[in-house]
């Protein structure tokens, strides 16, 4: 049986995504075996992150400075804003190294099931940013789900008054995907969005 402090640490670890009580127990034992090389640095890193990382008041990304590193980077294209649901999507797009503009995290999608309405999303901030004459395109990078695309259409409506160009990511055959394994809806979507070669 674990002593009080370990038990408490295990209870916290077990609340993390991907971990349950059993894996939390393994993780804490692993950390105890590497107290100096892993456990203490991890505790310090977590404490430092909790102290200093905050959402950017401009875009909603997480960073230790406000505005965040992306918003304040003069090399980023100020003409394009890529709208994403969550900070994880910013990180995914940054990994792809395909977008050099700036981001806007709206913090979720419209969902009747989860009771998320327009008022729960950071939409007003987006409309305000899009109205800036320096911005000429807003890319809606929402997930290709019913809720994601419902949100994208809603945002497109809200952005219409700004006169900015609104685009969205393409839907269709993924890289490495085989037609035989795709569902008919995705195939139809890919056909509709075909491009000339």
């Amino acid at each position: 049986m674990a002593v009080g402090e370990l038990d408490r640490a295990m209870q916290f670890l077990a609340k993390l995504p991907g971990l349950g009580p059993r894996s939390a127990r393994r993780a804490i034992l692993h950390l105890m075996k590497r107290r100096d090389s892993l456990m203490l640095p991890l505790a310090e890193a977590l404490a430092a992150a909790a102290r200093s990382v905050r959402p950017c008041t401009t875009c909603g990304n997480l960073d230790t400075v406000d505005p965040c590193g992306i918003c304040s980077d003069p090399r980023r294209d100020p003409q394009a804003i890529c709208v994403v649901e969550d900070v994880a999507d910013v990180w995914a797009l940054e990994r792809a190294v395909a977008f050099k503009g700036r981001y806007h995290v709206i913090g979720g999608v419209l969902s009747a099931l989860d009771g998320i309405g327009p008022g729960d999303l950071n939409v007003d901030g987006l409309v305000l940013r899009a109205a800036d004459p320096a911005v000429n395109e807003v890319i809606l990078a929402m997930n290709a789900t019913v809720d994601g695309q419902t949100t994208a259409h809603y945002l497109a409506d809200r952005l219409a008054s700004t006169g900015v160009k609104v685009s969205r990511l393409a839907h269709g055959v993924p890289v490495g995907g085989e037609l035989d394994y795709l569902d008919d809806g995705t195939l139809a979507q890919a056909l509709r969005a075909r491009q000339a070669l």
Partner: protein
Amino acid sequence: MVDWTDEGIVLAAKAHGEGSAIVVLLTRDHGRHAGLVRGAFSGRARGVYQPGNRVTAEWRARLADHLGNYTCELGHGHAAAVLDDPLKLAGLSAACAIAEASLPEREPHPQVHDGLVALLDAMAEPELGDAWIAVYVRWEIGVLADLGYGLDLESCAATGANDDLAYVSPRTGRAVSLAAGEPYRDRLLSLPRFLIGRGGGDQDDLFRGLALSGFFMERHVFATHGRQPPPARTRFVERFARDATVSGGGLSI
């Protein structure tokens, strides 16, 4: 062990734990029925559990009143087909939300299921234009009928005549002829012509249809339980009204 296989339409999928989801289907023979799907939000399976998709579902549980587990195979991906069309996407979301919020759990409503399949098929036909909205209105009226709140649009409640029907009584849900209803027109609902087989189906008529079915849905299905209609339906009607205003110069109801 209890198990069955049925045709179903995905109404909702709520994340449960890491990758699993509690999926609610409108099945043909087992009604609105929930079940756990392990790995529902994993890469390949995620697209299956989008509202409006038709699936063949196998449900299995130790006891009949348990939540149970679903194994689903995609039949037709209706959701992907309407992602580009904001009005159809709003209509699909509204229909799924209405079915999810109005139908009792585990009570078969095969006609509602078949009607929803017909609606999804109508949405997939581009040459039908906005006619799928008439199918939507008929489907909602069918839901009302299945729940015991059917409208009587066959003959006039006042005169018994079955010609020149123009209104619906908000109190009884019965049709009223133009002549009999004229003195009370401010208190009656407009009867869309497409519901009595007299043509119609233009945007004004479709909007009257949505207003009619929406009124009785709200009164009989939601208000009696102290609830509001699903926001998805409200957004659908608002979008239709806005699109019609933009393209047709305004609705006159």
